[in-house]
């Protein structure tokens, strides 16, 4: 394909919550991601366009946007994968407030991350040796399953429960809680079950699985949340008994 001469129609969200789509003609190239497309618009066509990125290789999780209505990490989404009839539609990430154009406010996402108990509580200090951990032990394997989350919020944008329920902590935060729950180094494992059992907790998840379906890192928050439900249910019965 002789890239240069071809263009595509890219509609991009402009403005805040009550903005609108604006369409640009962007030249097509052989290796080109959605982030490249958006960058081209800002660098060569419309200098006022706002978006966010940092690492540009799928590590930082700050470039997620809605592409043709689906949440994606744009730096790792090749145009070829999403181009439909020579057009692409790019909007700000769903379920988060829009700051401007394609940049969403991620604060609610991180507030919930912390609220879900997603912070390690030490059981040892820097003055103690590093304890051995069996890499194949059940706890470690379960905990490791979700450790590579880059907090990109793609799952958060994909989840309809988040859309309907402001309090819901969301898949990424709950997955982090599940990781910590299985981390034997974590000192407050019971506290995690409390943190995920409130009005916005894991029990609101309907297992619709969009989180797992869209996670660009192939993680499985749905299974992690199921794990939390299981453990909270177990502790529910245990507490009943006495």
């Amino acid at each position, binding site marked *: 394909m002789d890239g240069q001469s071809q263009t595509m129609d890219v509609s991009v969200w402009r403005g805040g919550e009550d903005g609108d789509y604006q369409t640009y003609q962007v030249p097509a190239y052989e290796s080109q991601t959605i982030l490249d497309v958006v960058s081209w618009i800002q660098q060569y066509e419309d200098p006022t366009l706002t978006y966010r990125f940092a690492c540009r290789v799928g590590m930082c999780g700050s470039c997620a946007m809605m592409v043709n209505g689906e949440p994606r990490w744009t730096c790792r989404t090749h145009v070829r994968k999403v181009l439909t009839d020579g057009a692409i539609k790019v909007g700000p990430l769903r379920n988060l407030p829009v700051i401007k154009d394609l940049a969403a406010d991620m604060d609610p996402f991180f507030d919930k991350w912390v609220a879900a108990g997603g912070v390690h509580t030490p059981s040892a200090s820097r003055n103690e040796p590093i304890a051995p951990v069996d890499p194949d032990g059940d706890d470690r394997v379960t905990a490791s399953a979700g450790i590579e989350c880059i907090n990109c919020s793609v799952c958060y944008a994909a989840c309809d429960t988040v859309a309907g329920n402001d309090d819901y902590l969301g898949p990424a935060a709950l997955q982090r809680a599940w990781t910590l729950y299985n981390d034997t180094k974590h000192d407050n494992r019971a506290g995690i079950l409390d943190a995920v059992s409130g009005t916005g907790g894991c029990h609101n998840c*309907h297992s619709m699985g969009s989180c797992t*379906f869209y996670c660009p890192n192939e993680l499985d928050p749905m299974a992690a949340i199921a794990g939390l439900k299981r453990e909270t249910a177990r502790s529910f019965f245990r507490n009943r008994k006495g």
Partner: protein
Amino acid sequence: MMRPARAHPLWLAFVLHRVSGVALALFLPLHFYVLSLALRAPERLDNFLTFAELPLVKFAEFGLVFLLAVHTAGGLRLMAMEWLPWSAPQKSLAAGAVGFAVLLSGTFFLQVI
């Protein structure tokens, strides 16, 4: 704002579960009402039951049994996934649940006609 296109199997299973749940919740009071007629006006119940012989109504009943079956099976799937310590391939289970519901309601349907 935009709604994401997310018609993947588990999401459809969720929609089915929700729709069936709501439909059941709407239908059940009706069902209860009809049954309580048995006490106060049995002849009206009989009328109703004759009415229930109409093909359209039969089809509706098939739908209701389907809903109940699909909702029950889906619910059991969810609880199995939440509480049992294995995480089976969820998609097959979801499909299985629907399949089971179709089978069950199909049996029922064949019986009725």
